Structures are given as structure tokens and as C-alpha cells.
């Protein structure tokens, strides 16, 4: 069959670059020591498996999370002074802008909206999902650099906290922090941008860590790659920003 279909392909096309599927010998090994079995073209197909609720929530949350980073890099275009701050802001702008588009498509392909019903309120930080998360064991996280991150601000269950100090999601800047950033220029902006973006990136790392602590989460291969890439590149960017901060704010 394979030979036949190739001949037909060549006859019809007359060109070398025709794409041909060939009749397969499909096998599936068993666990170590177990026999290998044969599969048919039908049984070889990957089962249709939707993402887990945790996967969907991760993507919807991350769109909002990335949205604030893009807002911050937008401010950097007119307010930053240091060329390296401008450069890292430009890189983050590109990365996170692209990733927002990518995440929206990922959700849409799986039938999910980019934001859940209830909008902002529905997206507010879910303390339940943070159970078991140990903020103290964040590898690569230097708490001395986290001056801008007010853990108290996340404690919005008491009803006493000013909404200006409530971050909508882990690592995100509070409305007050965003206001300060908007009002700053030059060296002061650079410092607030760097500390704010490190806080923001650390939040994304926590979100990735939280995702993989959910049973059955992250099995979608694209999501797995994406989440790990967020982890790797944002960690690298945090360190680049640490270096710039040391330079601009010795």
C-alpha cells in the first residue's frame, strides 16, 4: 500500500516534495518487562482529553497577570531613564504581549473564554488553591530584593485592608503601587519598575508552582511547555533585573 500510494502521488504531482503518509506498523511497548502490543491506526490515535480545571484557571489568571506586566512596560516607554531598564522592559513587553495572544488562543481552542464568568471578581486570588504553597521555599527568590512586595496586602479577608493595598493576584502590584509607578519618572521610575516587575515575575513563578501541585494538572503538552518556559524565562529575567537594580540603585 505504501508503495502504491507513493506512485500515485508522484504521478499526480510530478514533483519531489509531495507529502506522503505511509502504511504503518504501529506498536505500543508495555511497561519494562511487559510485551509490546500492536495497534491499529484507530487505536493509535491520542484520546480526546480536555484540560483540567486547574489548567484553565492557570491560563485565565496568567492572562490577567501578564496584562499588568504589559501595562507596566507601557509606562516604561515614556518614564524609564536607564537604557538597560528600557531594554528589559522592551523584552518583557514583547514576550508577555505575545504570550497573552497565545494563551487566549489556547483557551479558545479548548472551548474556554479568556476570562471566566464574573470577570475580575471571579479572578481574585483564590486562597483555597494556594494551600500547601510554601512561600519560604521559593528557589531563586531573594527576599531582600522583595522590598516592594507586601505580603500583608494579600491578606484581604479581614475587611480592614484599604482596597488600594489589595493585589488582585499573587505578585501583582496593588493599585497603590501602580499609582506610584505612574507618577514616577527617571531614576525613581527605574527603581519602582525593577522592584515591581521582580515582585510581579515572582508571582508568576508561584502560579506555575501552584499549578503543578494540582492533581492531574499540566498534562496538556502545550501548556506544560508554556508553563515551564514562563518559569525559566521569568526567573532569568528576575536575575537580569537584580543586576540592573544593583547598578541603578547601588
Amino acid at each position, binding site marked *: 500500500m505504501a508503495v502504491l500510494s507513493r506512485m500515485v502521488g508522484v504521478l499526480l504531482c510530478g514533483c519531489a516534495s509531495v507529502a506522503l503518509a505511509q502504511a504503518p506498523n504501529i506498536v505500543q*511497548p508495555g511497561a519494562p518487562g511487559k510485551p509490546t502490543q500492536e495497534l491499529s491506526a484507530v487505536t493509535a490515535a491520542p484520546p480526546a482529553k480536555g484540560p*483540567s480545571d486547574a489548567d484553565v484557571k492557570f491560563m485565565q489568571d496568567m492572562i490577567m497577570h501578564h496584562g499588568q506586566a504589559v501595562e507596566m512596560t507601557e509606562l516604561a516607554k515614556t518614564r524609564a531613564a536607564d537604557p538597560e531598564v528600557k531594554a528589559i522592559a522592551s523584552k518583557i513587553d514583547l514576550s508577555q504581549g505575545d504570550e497573552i495572544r*497565545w494563551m487566549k488562543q489556547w483557551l479558545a481552542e479548548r472551548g474556554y473564554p*479568556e476570562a471566566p464568568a*464574573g470577570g475580575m471578581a471571579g479572578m481574585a486570588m483564590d486562597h483555597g488553591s494556594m494551600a500547601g504553597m510554601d512561600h519560604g521555599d521559593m528557589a531563586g527568590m531573594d527576599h531582600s530584593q522583595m522590598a516592594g512586595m507586601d505580603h500583608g496586602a494579600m491578606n484581604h479577608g479581614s475587611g480592614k485592608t484599604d482596597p488600594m493595598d489589595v493585589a488582585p493576584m499573587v505578585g501583582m502590584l496593588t493599585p497603590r503601587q501602580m499609582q506610584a509607578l505612574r507618577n514616577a519618572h527617571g531614576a525613581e521610575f527605574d527603581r519602582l519598575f525593577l522592584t515591581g516587575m521582580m515582585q510581579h515575575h515572582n508571582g508568576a513563578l508561584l502560579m506555575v*508552582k501552584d499549578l503543578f501541585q494540582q492533581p492531574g494538572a499540566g*498534562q496538556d503538552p502545550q501548556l506544560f511547555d508554556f508553563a515551564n518556559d514562563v518559569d525559566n524565562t521569568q526567573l532569568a529575567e528576575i536575575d537580569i533585573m537584580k543586576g540592573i537594580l544593583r547598578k541603578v540603585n547601588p
Partner: protein
Amino acid sequence: MKQISLLKAAFAVAAVFVGSLPVLTAQMDHEKPMATPPPPTVYVNPRAPESDPRVGLKAGLYDAGVAAKGLELIQTIAKPSGFAPDESKIPAWEDAAPPAPGAPRGAAIPAPYGTTNSDLAFQGKYVFVGNYYGVNTYDISDPAHTKLVTSMVCPGGQGDVSVYGHLLFMSVEAANGRIDCGTQGFASLEEAQKAQAAMREQMANMSAEERQKMMASGRKPEPAEKDRVRGVRIFDISDVTKPRQITDVQTCRGSHTHTLVVDPKDKNNVYIYVSGSAGVRDVKELAGCSGASPDEDPNTALFTIVVIQVPLAHPELAKVVNSPRIFSDPTTGNANGLWKGGNHGEGTQTTSATRGCHDITVYSAVGLAAGACSGNGILLDISDVVHPKRLDAVSDPNYAFWHSANFTNDGKAILFSDEWGGGGQPRCRATDPMQWGADAIFSIGPDKKMTLKSYYKMPAAQTDKENCVAHNGSEIPVPGRALHVQSWYQGGISLVDWTDPAHPVEIAYYDRGPISGKKFAMGGQWSTYWYNGTIYGSEIARGLDVLKLTPTDWMTADEIAAANQITFKELNVQDQPQVVWPATYITAKAYLDQLARGESLSKDKVASIKTLVTAASSDKKAAAKLKGMAGELDKAAATAKTPADAKRLHGLAEIFRKNADGAALSIASL
């Protein structure tokens, strides 16, 4: 002469381009004026003009527009059943509108391009094509009629593959890899809860004893899964049509990639260096795994690579034998030495966080390995394979993620790639800086320290529908040159000459239009490697591409023929083989074609030697005449215009002196 002046013109354009980059990018992107990246301190190749034939190619899965120079596609073999795209579903996917924000869940319309093709390994007449869903094995004894031999279903991306004798190694990193190669993955929390609810309902009518029994068999919804594999799978491929799984070597971070290491001093074992860049597994899933910082846990799975020993007589006993702390600070012993490295001086970037490697290329012939390790490029001494030692580490302000590495054949330069954006993002748009998501070329000094020489990026602007960034490639063994054929995802294939590490030049390419013109679809070349005269590309969506080199001014038929003298019995590209060329007139012709491009020997002289060489295989007098020239050629090498020309002249002298007896040329003449 014409070629030389072209080259000079290209450099002049580059200089102008880099100088005026801010203006250009600002003009290209009206909505968002962009900040300037730090100006590169070294040469970066220029962006190709808009007239480049690769710009604006028609989209399509199997009927995309093509632009090629110096590379010809012989055949594409679409992915087989189970792995293949479903063309009938493309229109519905392309036209589907996303659900409105806040809308309830709608119908899933997944991208219909099948499972992801990944890395390649070669042995004899077979190529093994890794995939997130398994491995496909093809018979390439006649590359123009490449045939599928075996489709092996065994999910657990990314499916990086290596082959040694009757053993096939496969990397598993993803969360859905199962010990039994099952395709079902693992239950999500809500699925597990549903199962528990059903169980409770059943239990209501049970006796206490039955209930207890059922409780014991019921699964608790936990992230830890006893049937999960993350690490390296080992298969017996004695019968290539029926691979058997021998064992799985489990590792804490899984295996993003792995590198086969053959220790010339150890005939009983082969070794695997495992690079893991994903999260650390739950200790309940794999004992001893810790993702803590090294200050808190000296046995952390971060800041290390994993070394697996595979006893050849008993591969089922393969096991982890070391987790070398290759990032440690030599004076303090801190495991995270590179991470705490800090600034490299006034105005430079800090060393980025290096928690693990993405890929390692070993070059056993010179006892070195190059690690592309998150925030650093590192050079390792692997003379003691189980205990690699760091010789040097570099970081770069333009680099986001150190991805892979290749050595020149003389081991004196390394080409690192930066997978900025992780491979799933379009990073070759006209607005993306040339030094971002590029190759960075370093020289290795006699002191084994690395120095940045240049950046190279596939120069033709791609659309925002095409994921594109530097990715895997291999060296083409043309004597006298360093040639790297490389994947750029949907940016296609680019062949770069990096003989002069300070001035890389593209000499050939193959590119298709986007997979879809309507929506972003993941695709493009994952790995593109030269193997015994043919170039194979694993196209993520479209299948296995088979290509050949075609002669151009920059790659003559004689140079291609000289490369084709080299035959590998096995090729795992990250276990880089050292090529030793034979003393033949075919090799000599390649050197002469290269000398004709330069100014170390007059054109007339080159032409007259080539006439003699052409005659020499059947004319003893011509051979004797050439032998008589050897001293003169060695002398000319002393005044050669470039180090590469000097090597070529010495190479010629050696071939002529040996009467082209086919013996191995000495390393010095490579």
C-alpha cells in the same frame, strides 16, 4: 573576487543597520515605539532585505510557498496515523471565533496538526524521529524513497532520542508520561473527585468489610502518581520493528533533553547526561526529590545535572550515578555559585539564574562538553565522564535562554543558541532585534575560557503566524570550513558558515510559508541534521523532510562531494563526533575551491593546481608534481590571509605529500 566583495558589502550593510536600528524599529512599529536593545558589542549579521524570497510566502500545511537556496527538498513524509494532522478539520479550526469573555464553555476545536515532532537520531540505515507521542523509525537506505518502518506510541514529551547499538533512549519530561506507554495520562482533580463520588454512592449499599476494601483500592486525588515516568526510557531495538521497553530511569526534574556520552576509557558502560529544566517532582512521587534552594537542602534537584550509567551487558540495571554540582562556586562550594555570581563589572548584566541545563553537547574527542544551561553557557571538562568539572561560564545580556551548543571540528569555537520565547512564539518578525533569539558564537582560548565573537540569526523576516527562534542544528563535514545547518522552527532551515567565528554568513536556506495564514499554528523545523550526505529535518507539523545540498557559489559540487566522503555508523548530534578527513584528491578539491574565494593564493595558482589534481588520480606525473609543491604550500600557509586558509594550505600539502593515499589527515590540518 566577486564573492569577496559581496561579503564585504554584507558587513558594511550590517554596520549601517546596527547603527540605525532604533530608527528602523520605530518606523516599523507605529503603534508601539520600542526601546532599543543594548547595542551589540560584536558583529551581528544584518536583517535580509524585504526582497528576500522568504518574505511573504503563501501559507499551507502541505502546499505552502517555498523559497530555497543551496538546499533542495527531496521528499516530505507526513506524520503517520496517530501522530498525523487531520486536514479535514483545518477550515473549522481556522474559522472558529473565540468564546466571549465570561461566556460558558463552548465546543473544543483543537488545532488539527497532530502530535509534535521533535529530535532526531541516526543509526545505519535508520533515522529515529522523536515525537511528544512516541518515536517513528524510518528506513533511509535510499533517502529519496524514505520509508516508515515502525511507529511507536509512547507519550511523554519531548521525546528527545539517542541510539547506541541495540539501545534507544528517549527523554520524558511531560506530566502525562506513563510507565506502560499508555495514552490516557492521569486523572485530573475533578475526574478523581467524580470517581470518588461514584464510589461513595456504591459504598452506601455495601457491608463494612466491602467498604473498607473499596476504600483501600480507591485513589486519593494527589499530584503524585506511581505510574508516572519523568526521566529516560530505555528500549531494546534489536528488532527495530518491535521495540521493547527495558527500563525507565526516573529523575527529579524529568529529562528535557539528554546526551549520550561514550567514554573512550570505559568499554562496559555508556553514560547519559540528563538536562532537566522543568519543575521538581513531588517527593511522594519520587523519593529524595527536593526543589529547595541549596542553602536549605544540599541535596536539592536544582543546580545540577544527572549522570546515568548504562551497563551494556545489563542495560536494565541503568541507574543514576551522580548529580554533579557543575554550577558550584569553586572557592565556597556553594551549589548555586553561578547564580550568586553577580555583575561582571561596571555596566554589564548579572549572571542569570542557572538552575539546570537545557541541553549539553559533549565532544569526547577533545574531552570537553558545552552546556546550554538556563542563564549561562558553560564549558565542562569531561575527561572523567561521571564527574564533569566546570572550566568556564559565560552569560550574555542579549540572551534569554541558553538552549543548545555545537563545537567546531577543531574544538576551538562553540555556537550556542538562544531559544527566546521557548520555541512557541514568533521571534523573527521585522521588529525583533537580530541579536535576540539568535546564535552566539564564542571562541575557546588555550586557557579554556570563552570569548563572545558574534551573533547570528536567520535573517529573513517572518510573520507573526510563524513560531521562530534559534533551534537545533548539526555540522556539515566539508573539510576546511565550519558549516552549521540549523532549524529555526517556521523560519525554516538556515545554513551558516562560521569558519570565521567573528563573521558568520548564511550560505543556504530552505523556508516555507506559515502552516496557517489565518491563525497561529505550532510548527516548523525542530531539528535539522546532516547524516551521510543527506539533510533530515523533523518538521513539527508536516513530517520528516529529506533534503540535499545543491551547488552554489558558496558551496561547490566538489565541497559537497568532500563532505560526502564522511560516513557515520551512528549519529547522536549532541554526542558530537570528530570528523577526520581522508587524504584524497576530493578533499584537496574542496580546499582549492575555498582558497579560490580568498586572497591567500592567486586565482591562477589555484586554477593550475586544480587542473593537476583533476589529472592526478590517473596521471602519476601530475601526482609527483603536486608532491613537489607540498613545501611551497606549507610556506604559503605562513603568510595566508586567514587562519582558515592556512589550514587549507597545510591540508593540501599533507594530501600531496601522501600522494592522496586516503589515510587520515592529521588533526592539525583540519
